[in-house]
């Protein structure tokens, strides 16, 4: 019995171990190494044939040089900050757009809900890259949006949207909207509508009932949706490089350039490790907080 339970748990854990922890340790190791003109382009290499001495000299050669280097060039922390800002703002915009959609879906007639859900998932049927390219066609100076706005006479000269941060926001919000809608929809759909009637009956206006009942009850969906948008958005590379301009500074782009243009694997790895810490630490703190709240409830 215990063995079976163990086997059941072991499968996902071995999967995570092989595909997350091991690569992570390799990246960590590279981030502590030095750049070298060699293949692979870093050193030291672990030389097991030299025995114990090989291992000690391997560890002796590891240092935090690359992390120190990241603090010397303000490009990096500006990239981190700008990524955080873009990710946070786009998460907020996604929430503002996604919540009403999820709310509308959850309140729609039952026979409509499956269709509406399908429509939210539908964009995933085409490649993400193609959809981002499509936005280039829409947002460019001669693009559909500008043509339409000029046709209606709202503007006389085309707006420059492509290759600005605005285009990056549009791209991120568009791409990650389903990840915001789905968990919020799941939370709202479960909600008993008589709770809102009860709130009204007890003296709430509709708006008060929304803030006091609907929002707290969909809190878990909101949190899940925000994580699902914020985490990938912060390290996003494709959207800023295709829709953003030279002024768009995001850590994903910096990482890519370090890795492929400069071939500086150790610095690129250090950038990745810091990014991971930026993401993981708040999540761990948040979860600990949740746990405490649950324990306090008993």
């Amino acid at each position, binding site marked *: 019995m215990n063995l079976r339970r163990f086997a059941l748990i072991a499968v996902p854990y071995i999967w995570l171990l092989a595909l997350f922890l091991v690569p992570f340790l390799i990246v960590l190791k590279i981030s502590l190494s030095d750049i070298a003109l060699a293949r692979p382009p870093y050193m030291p290499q672990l030389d097991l044939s030299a025995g114990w001495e090989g291992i000690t000299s391997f560890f002796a050669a590891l240092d935090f040089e690359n992390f120190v280097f990241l603090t010397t060039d303000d490009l990096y922390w500006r990239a981190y900050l700008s990524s955080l800002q873009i990710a946070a703002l786009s998460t907020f915009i996604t929430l503002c757009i996604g919540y009403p959609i999820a709310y509308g879906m959850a309140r729609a007639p039952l026979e409509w809900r499956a269709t509406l859900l399908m429509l939210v998932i539908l964009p995933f049927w085409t490649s993400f890259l193609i959809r981002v390219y499509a936005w280039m066609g829409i947002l460019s100076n001669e693009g559909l949006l500008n043509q339409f706005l000029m046709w209606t006479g709202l503007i006389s000269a085309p707006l420059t949207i492509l290759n600005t941060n605005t285009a990056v926001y549009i791209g991120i919000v568009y791409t990650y909207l389903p990840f915001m809608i789905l968990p919020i929809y799941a939370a709202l759909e479960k909600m*008993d509508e*008589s709770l809102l009637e*009860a709130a009204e009956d007890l003296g709430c206006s509709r708006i008060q009932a929304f803030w006091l009942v609907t929002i707290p009850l969909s809190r878990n969906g909101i949190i899940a949706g925000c994580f699902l948008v914020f985490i990938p958005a912060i390290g996003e590379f494709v959207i800023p490089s295709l829709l953003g301009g030279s002024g768009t500074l995001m850590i994903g782009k910096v990482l890519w350039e370090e890795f492929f243009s400069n071939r500086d694997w150790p610095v690129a790895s250090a950038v990745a490790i810091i990014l991971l810490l930026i993401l993981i630490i708040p999540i761990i703190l948040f979860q600990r907080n949740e746990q405490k709240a649950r324990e306090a409830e008993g």
Partner: protein
Amino acid sequence: MSQKVFAPWEDATEKPLIQFKGVTKKFGDFVAIDNLSLDIYQKEFFALLGPSGCGKTTMMRMLAGFEAPTHGTILLAGQDIAPVPPNKRAVNMMFQSYALFPHLSVWDNIAFGLRREGQDKDAIAARVEEMLRLTRLSKFAKRKPHQISGGQRQRVALARSLAKAPKLLLLDEPLGALDAKLRQDTQFELMDIQEKTGTTFVIVTHDQEEAMTVASRVAVMDEGRVIQVATPSVIYEAPETVYVADFIGDVNIIQGRASQDADKVRIDWAEGQPPIIGTTQKTFSPSQTCHFAIRPEKVAISTEQPEAPNVLQGRVIDIAYLGNLSTYHVELPDGTMMKAQTANTRRLSRRDITWEDNVWLSFTDTAGVLLER
């Protein structure tokens, strides 16, 4: 000092708290409430009783403000409540699903309505504590709704709806989710709380026993109309229609032709059978079709031919043993089935009537009611 019987509906000077005046409610083409007029008085425990889909819940939702009547007016203390939204009505509702806020503790659930009124903290705390004491929930104040039992949740819902001291409390199938034993206890608890707080209660239920137990008056409803409004005993003893007689409790209905002589009516109900003699205040035209309704417990059963105004002979087909009572299903010579009920004052082994026995059924001429329809 003689105690005054609580019966404001008999007092012409008494002003009703709630008045339905020609209220009709339509959902599309479906008529949920059909031109209904009804008065409910202060401090009443009023039950709306009927099968599901009879419109009783719609009536309650109109009182709470979640539905508006299509025609007609509803007055609360003499004022038309149509323009008053649910959050401004001095009416609170206890929901069938209880609708407790799952993210709030018992204490906060009860305080919810009070906080909306903007009372100061001490007043809210005092009122919540009072409600917790009234519903015996003080120990559970800190718990969340999912951490307490069904019966406790029911009491939280009651405490929450009573906290604002409404003029009128609506209870939508309040005991539906409880098991039989807890239901009975809770019924008496409800009556007790109703008496202590002096609040007018309107309860919706499809359970006739529940309505009979708790209510001062019962309105029996069917298809959007009120069939009869009366005290439980009048509903039971003097139903006005076959529908009411049949809906409340067990009844034998015998159809026949009436021939009246003053207050006595002779009912010819089958070829070769002695006519049934009944008493009525109504007038039946000669040979008018009428229904004679008699409760099984008013029919006596014996092995010897008794002396009584009505005596019928039959054969025992079935015996339903209920512990305290036994119901005998007796087939009369023409095939009509009639139920007779006796209290089991003796042990089962001493019972002298059994299956296939030929027995005599008897009842007085005032035991049953004569109904036109």
